[in-house]
């Protein structure tokens, strides 16, 4: 025993752990979820690391943990003392400091004396293009234990949250009041002050809603204590635990938890000791739409809904509790929750019935009182614009007559649900509410579904509308917003996009690319701008047009790059033509597949070499190539190949066989042009001959670049 003790003592303590716990009243769960669950690096971690760095205390790693009532900064591999550091103070210029013989001047010596420095401690360094003499002084190196109080206080003060409050007269602000501070350096308590509070070597637990202060002697004991009390400090672990709880509760019911990532995140930060229960509710509420049921449960009570294997809602819910509960306690809690759920759903049922007293068509005129966008009219006008656009864009997008009728009707009615009590209560149900009411009003299924999907995709991971009508409606809704913002000078800046226009434009491009919906970007832009003529004067519309097309083009590139296509291939395809993103995307798909094959490489060579020759030419080239100006045999051979095969190639391209066209193009021109460029001097002294040769080469190049892709943009891989 004593030998063991001696061994432990003998181990050199060169690195230890430092722990800071901020105990607060319940922090906003959504704030924490935003910080910790957004997939990016945690800014709190970086902020704390910076403070350690600023105080020259080396650490291996820092982890930040958050529960509703604690923020914990745990640093490991903490160096026992500050890193050495020299401070340089600029004294004089070099000329002022030394005489011609290199001896220190009187001036320098005086200053050194004044500053308590020696000539040996000076050095010369350039600063702002001049040479200066600096005095080097080593900063004192303090032991970490002495510096940590400052480090901890600064971490607390430096934390940055989107919304803060005051609670006492310390002038300190934080998302919610801080009520305890704990600092530990290994087994030593760190005493510091922040937010008008002094740290204590204890942590706080809430058992049965009673605050309990428990002393903590070291970092290991801290973590052990939390585990013993059932507190799952690590949010990653806690989220996993919550998921497991939900799964273990839903499995015996033959059910699946209704997917709601937002709720899962929020609940993770609403509890520190997760516990769960399942309970039934009345079947009479199954009349309510699935979305209404689950949104009501989630938003009003943070309860999870359940669906069966076919996706139908089940009359049961799951709850995640905070703190251990016995079975009998759970029984009481679940009975209470069910009673409350009943009352809340009864209210939803009330809205559902009240709302349906007027059809969407009858409600619609009230949209005149709802502003769509300042200076771009009301929601009523927006729905009128959409209805007219639907009549133009729908047929062009290849919708059949019934689909066009559905689309126009959906466009007309799609905003009316903004006037319902249901959407007033649950704004996230806009669109979905309209879908149910439209179906109840006897609108066609196509119309109802399109209304329900008009806002898809809302986020990057959202699904796209499932029907063609829904796709076009969603694209029109977004295109109108984007055009209006650009017309009114509200386009996004590099850092700010308050109207979410980039996301919207990505949505439009995805609908075209992934759903293959034929939308012409110029026609869409022109149509939308024309509809806005009442609000956007002609010069502004003209200016917006080019910007809008460029904006869509950039989103298009991003969408395709995201699908794994090479940027140079995308650029090449775009350079040929960008009208319908669906069509351009199909070209990119094929080209990407061809890109490493010999035909593609040879075709690229043809385009590259012809383009290089044409680069120097500024003159207008004739379309017709004159046989009488041909001087060389090889030139004639190329000309004949071109005359013979140009039409074939065009035909294959128009038939949609890009692979065939590329192969034909490469086989026709590659070999012969290699010879041609070697033997024939294009820049003939006779301008007429030269122009004729250039025209021939341009004809060959354009055959590919105008219809398929400008392969001169391809970089050798």
């Amino acid at each position, binding site marked *: 025993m004593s030998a063991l003790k001696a061994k432990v003592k003998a181990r050199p303590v060169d690195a230890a752990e430092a722990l800071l716990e901020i105990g607060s009243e319940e922090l906003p769960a959504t704030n924490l979820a935003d910080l910790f669950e957004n997939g990016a690096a945690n800014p709190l971690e970086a902020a704390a690391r910076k403070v350690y760095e600023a105080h020259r205390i080396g650490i291996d790693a820092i982890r930040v943990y958050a529960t509703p009532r604690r923020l914990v900064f745990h640093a490991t591999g903490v160096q026992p003392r500050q890193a050495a550091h020299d401070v340089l103070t600029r004294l004089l210029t070099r000329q002022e400091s030394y005489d011609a013989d290199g001896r220190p001047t009187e001036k320098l010596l005086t200053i050194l004396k004044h500053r308590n420095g020696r000539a040996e401690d000076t050095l010369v360094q350039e600063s702002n293009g001049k040479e200066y003499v600096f005095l080097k002084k080593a900063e004192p190196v303090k032991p970490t234990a002495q510096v940590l109080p400052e480090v901890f206080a600064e971490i607390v003060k430096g934390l940055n949250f989107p919304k803060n409050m005051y*609670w006492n007269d310390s002038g300190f602000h934080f998302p919610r009041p801080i009520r305890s501070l704990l600092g530990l350096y290994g087994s030593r308590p760190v005493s510091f002050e922040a937010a008008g509070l002094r740290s204590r070597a204890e942590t706080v637990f809430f058992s049965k809603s009673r605050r309990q202060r428990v002393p903590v002697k070291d970092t290991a004991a801290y973590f052990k204590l939390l585990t013993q009390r059932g507190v799952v400090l690590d949010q990653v672990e806690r989220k996993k635990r919550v998921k497991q709880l939900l799964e273990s509760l839903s499995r015996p019911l033959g059910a699946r938890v209704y997917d709601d990532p937002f709720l899962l995140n929020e609940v993770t930060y609403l509890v520190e000791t997760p516990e769960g229960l399942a309970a039934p509710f009345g079947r009479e509420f199954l009349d309510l739409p699935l979305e209404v049921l689950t949104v009501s449960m989630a938003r009003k009570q943070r309860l999870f809904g359940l669906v069966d294997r076919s996706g139908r809602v089940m009359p049961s819910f799951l709850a995640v509790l905070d703190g251990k509960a016995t079975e009998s306690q759970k029984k009481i809690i679940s009975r209470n929750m069910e009673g409350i759920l009943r009352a809340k759903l009864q209210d939803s049922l009330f809205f559902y019935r009240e709302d349906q007293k007027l059809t969407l068509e009858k409600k619609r005129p009230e949209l005149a*009182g*709802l502003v769509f966008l300042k200076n771009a009219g009301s929601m009523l006008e927006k729905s009128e614009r959409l209805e007219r656009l639907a009549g133009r864009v729908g047929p062009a997008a290849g919708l059949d007559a019934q689909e066009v009728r559905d689309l126009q009707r959906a466009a007309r009615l799609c905003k009316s649900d903004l006037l319902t009590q249901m959407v007033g209560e649950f704004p996230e149900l806009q669109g979905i509410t309209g879908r149910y009411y439209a179906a109840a009003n006897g609108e066609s299924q196509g119309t109802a579904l399109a209304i329900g999907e008009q806002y898809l995709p809302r986020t990057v991971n959202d699904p796209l509308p499932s029907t063609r009508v829904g796709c076009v409606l969603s694209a029109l809704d977004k295109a109108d917003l984007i055009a209006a913002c650009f017309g009114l000078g509200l386009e996004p800046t590099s850092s700010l996009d308050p109207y979410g226009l980039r996301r919207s434009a990505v949505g439009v491009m995805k609908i075209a690319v992934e759903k293959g919906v034929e939308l012409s970007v110029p026609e869409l832009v022109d149509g939308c701008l024309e509809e806005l003529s009442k609000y956007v004067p002609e010069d502004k519309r003209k200016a917006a047009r080019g910007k809008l097309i460029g904006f869509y083009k950039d989103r298009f590139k991003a969408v395709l790059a995201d699908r794994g296509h090479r940027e140079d291939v995308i650029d090449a395809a775009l350079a040929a033509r960008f009208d319908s993103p669906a069509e351009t995307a199909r070209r990119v798909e094929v080209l990407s597949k061809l890109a490493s094959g010999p035909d593609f490489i040879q075709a690229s060579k043809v385009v590259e070499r012809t383009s290089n020759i044409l680069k120097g030419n500024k003159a207008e080239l004739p379309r017709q190539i004159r046989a009488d100006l041909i001087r060389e045999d090889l030139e004639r051979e190329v000309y004949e190949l071109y005359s013979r095969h140009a039409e074939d190639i065009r035909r294959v391209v128009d038939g949609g066989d890009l692979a065939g066209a590329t192969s034909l193009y490469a086989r026709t021109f590659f070999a012969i042009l290699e010879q041609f460029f070697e033997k024939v001097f294009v820049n003939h002294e006779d301008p007429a001959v030269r122009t004729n040769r250039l025209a021939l080469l341009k004809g060959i190049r354009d055959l590919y670049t105008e219809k398929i892709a400008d392969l001169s943009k391809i970089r050798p891989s």
Partner: protein
Amino acid sequence: MVTFQELIAKLSDYWAKKGCAVLQPYDMEVGAGTFHPATFFGALGPEPTQVAYVQPTRRPTDGRYGDNPLRTQHYYQYQVLLKPSPDEAQDLYLDSLRAVGLKLEEHDIRFVQDDWESPTLGASGLGWEVWLDSLEVTQFTYFQQVAGFPLKPISCEITYGLERICMFLQGKHDLFDLRWDSRRSYGDLRKACEIEYCRYNFETSDIPTLHQLFEIYEREAKRLLGPEPDAKSLVLPAYECTLKTSHIFNMLDARGAVSVNERPTYIARVRALAKRCAQAHMKRYETAEAPAAQEAGR
């Protein structure tokens, strides 16, 4: 079993012991205990205040003709204002729940973030809805601003939903089933009233009259405050007129007589009045007399 009237008595007893002046309800229609001058004016200015009171509360749009077990157009709040906010505010609150007889260990209690705001009063604060088994039973707020004035010191406002807390005490799932006393239920005393007011609020109130009343009270408030409110302005009567406009706006809203784009305008008109009342009140601190604050029951 704790009856509804005993719940009120117990809360008053508890907060009186903690040093609060137990006030009476304000005798006008208000949408929340916050509108009581003891809170509105009490939160402004530098001097400490501790008050507790029941406040009958009217929210015409929340009426459900007595059919909903949780929502009514008229209900009772219990309001506590502590200024400056004590460090142990949360514990005081939890203890008060125990004091009225709730066994907290049998419930799931949660403080769910709520950034509270009263657009008509220009008041806002940060805090929580306190959830008992997923039902909001209390609004717990650290006031940050009233009528646009930043506050120092900060007040803590605790607003209990009395019916809801009583439902847990009595194991009832419908507020009309609550025992008011040993002989009468809440429904016996309140249900007929509730239905009558729902009919008035939703169906029979006269829209032109309401419009006129709004104008009249707004005009009177403005007259009392004058173009430039000062320490001599009759703040409290002007504030009462402001409360009237607020209630009448709620009545118009329930009647569906406020179109979507008129809404913000009405709210802004009420807020402008509230703001001027607060300005006049604050002027009094400059001249070292604060009758409004005294009225607030310090």
